[in-house]
C-alpha cells in the first residue's frame, strides 16, 4: 500500500513536467495531468507492479462554468483503485469547453468504454480512438449535452413535449387554482 504523496512522487519521477497541479491535503488527493500524457500514464499506473491500479472505480465529466474563482473548463476525473494494494488515487484532466477531446483509456480498463460513452453523451467530450462512441443514455438523435451547465432543455422531442409539466408551486405563484379545494365556498 502506498500513500497518495508516494504515488504522486512515482508519477513525477516517471513523467516529469506532465503533472500540472496536485493537492494532497483534500479528502481524495488528486493530480491534474497533461491530457496528452494521460493514456501513457494510465497504462503505467495499471501495469507497474508497485501501483497495480486494477480498477477504474469511476470516470466522471464535470462542467466548471459559473463557479466563482474557477476557470471555465471541462474536467474528466478518473477515480482509480488497486484491489491488490488497497490504495486509491484520482487523476484529473482539464479540457477547454469548446470541442473537448481526449484519448480513450478503454484499452486499459474495459469499463471505460461505457463510462466514456456516458461522458460523451452528457458533456460532449470526444474520446479519440474510442471503438464505439455513441450516446448511451439519451436517444441517438438527442440534441445538446444535458449535464452542461448552460444546457437548455428542448421544448419538444419528435413532437412530444419534452419539458416537465408545471409544478403546483409554480401554478400557485401564477395565481392558478391548484387541485380541488374542499373548503372553497360554492
Amino acid at each position, binding site marked *: 500500500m502506498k500513500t497518495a504523496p508516494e504515488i504522486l512522487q512515482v508519477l513525477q519521477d516517471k513523467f516529469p513536467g506532465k503533472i500540472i497541479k496536485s493537492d494532497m491535503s483534500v479528502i481524495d488527493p488528486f493530480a491534474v495531468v497533461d491530457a496528452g500524457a494521460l493514456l501513457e500514464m494510465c497504462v503505467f499506473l495499471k501495469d507497474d507492479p508497485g501501483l497495480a491500479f486494477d480498477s477504474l*472505480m469511476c470516470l466522471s465529466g464535470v462542467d466548471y462554468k459559473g463557479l466563482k474563482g474557477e476557470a471555465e473548463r471541462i474536467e474528466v476525473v478518473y*477515480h482509480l483503485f488497486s484491489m491488490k494494494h488497497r490504495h486509491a488515487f*484520482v487523476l484529473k484532466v482539464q479540457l477547454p469547453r469548446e470541442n473537448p477531446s481526449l484519448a480513450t483509456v478503454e484499452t486499459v480498463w474495459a469499463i471505460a468504454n461505457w463510462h466514456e460513452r456516458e461522458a460523451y453523451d452528457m458533456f460532449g467530450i470526444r474520446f479519440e480512438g474510442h471503438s464505439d462512441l455513441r450516446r448511451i*443514455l439519451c436517444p441517438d438523435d438527442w440534441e445538446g449535452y*444535458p449535464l452542461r451547465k448552460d444546457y437548455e432543455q428542448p421544448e419538444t422531442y419528435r413532437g412530444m413535449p419534452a419539458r416537465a409539466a408545471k409544478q403546483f408551486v409554480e401554478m400557485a405563484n401564477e395565481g392558478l387554482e391548484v387541485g380541488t379545494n374542499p373548503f372553497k365556498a360554492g
Partner: protein
Amino acid sequence: MQVEAYEGEDMILNMGPQHPSTHGVLRLELKTDGEIVQRIVPHIGYLHRCFEKHAENVDYPGVIPYADRMDYIASMNNSLGYALAVEKLMGIQVNERVKTIRVIVAELNRIASHLLSIGTYAMDIGAYTPFLHCFREREKILDLFEWTCGARLLYNYNWVGGLSHDLPDGFVEKARQFLKEFEPVIVEENNLLSFNKIFIERTANVGVLSKEMALSYNVTGPNLRGSGVQWDLRKDIPYCGYETYTFEVPVGLGKFGSLGSCWDRYYVRVREMEESVKLIRQALDRLPEGDVQEHVPKRVKPPKGEVFGRSETPRGELGYYIISDGGTNPFRVKVKSPCFTALSVLPEISKGQMVADIIAVIGSIDIVMGELDR
C-alpha cells in the same frame, strides 16, 4: 450498430424493451446464427431521468428521495451511500445508535433485495413456486419498514447525519421473530431450488465470468464474488462500524462446473442472506440508546471540496462523486452504478451462448434498470 454488418444466415433478434425477463426496460440487440448468439448490443436509457441534473437543482437533503428512486429494490442502501458521502464531506460523526440502526435496515433491505432477485431469477428459469416463497418473506421486511418510517419501498430514511425516525417500540422483538421465521426458508429454498438438478443444469457453466474480466470491467458485489474474488467493502473498507461485526464474505467456488457461472453468482446471494441474518442478530443485540437526530445539521452546507464515497449495496459498489461549491445545492453529483458496470460485461460473457441462456445470464447479474439508467 451498423446494419450493413449483417449478411448471410445471420439473424437479428430484438429482446425487449418490453420483455418479462429483462427486469425493466432493457433492449438487447442479438445477432444470432441459428440458436447461437454471436453478438449482443445492449441499448439502455429507457428509464433515464437524469438524476444527476436533478441533484444539481435541489439541496443536499433533497437529493435523498431521488437517490431512493434509483435502485428502488434497495432504497435504504442507496440513500445510505449518499448520506455517508455527504457526512464524509462535512466531517460529521454519527452516534452509535444511528450506525447500528443503519446496519439493521441496510441488511434487512439486502435480504429483501436478494429475495426479489432470487425469486424472479427462478421464475425466469421456469420455477414459479420459489418466487411466491421469496415474496412472502420480502413482504414481512417491507412491513417492518412501513412500521418504521411509513413507506414500503422508497423510504427517505437515511438522512445526512442521522435518520428520519427512531425504531418503533417493539421493533427488536418483531425483527427477531422475522429472522426466526426466515432462517428455515433459506434451507427450504436451497432444497427446492439451489440444489435442484434442473436448475443446476440451466445455470452452471452458463455465462462464465472470469476474475480478470470482472476486474477489468469493474464488476462488483455478488457478481465479482461469484467469480471467486473475496472483496466486500463491508469487510475490506468498513463503514458504519461493520468492522465490529462477525460475518463471512461468501465467494463462488465453482461447485457445479466452471467458476463464475450463473449458479455461482446466484448462490453467493443465497449465502449473503445467511450472513445478513447474522449481522442483524448482532446489531439487535447491541442496539445502544441515543438520539437518532443528534447530529442532523440544521442546514446542510458542506465546505468547498469534493468527495468520492462508496458503499456496498446488494448489487455491488455504489459510488457517489459529490462536488461542493460551498453552497446549499451540490455543484455536481455523479453516481457510479454497480448495475451499469455489470451490464457492460454482458456482451462478453454471453458470446456463443444459446438464446435461451441469455435469459439465465441477465437474471444472474441482477440488474435494476432504475439504477442503471438513473
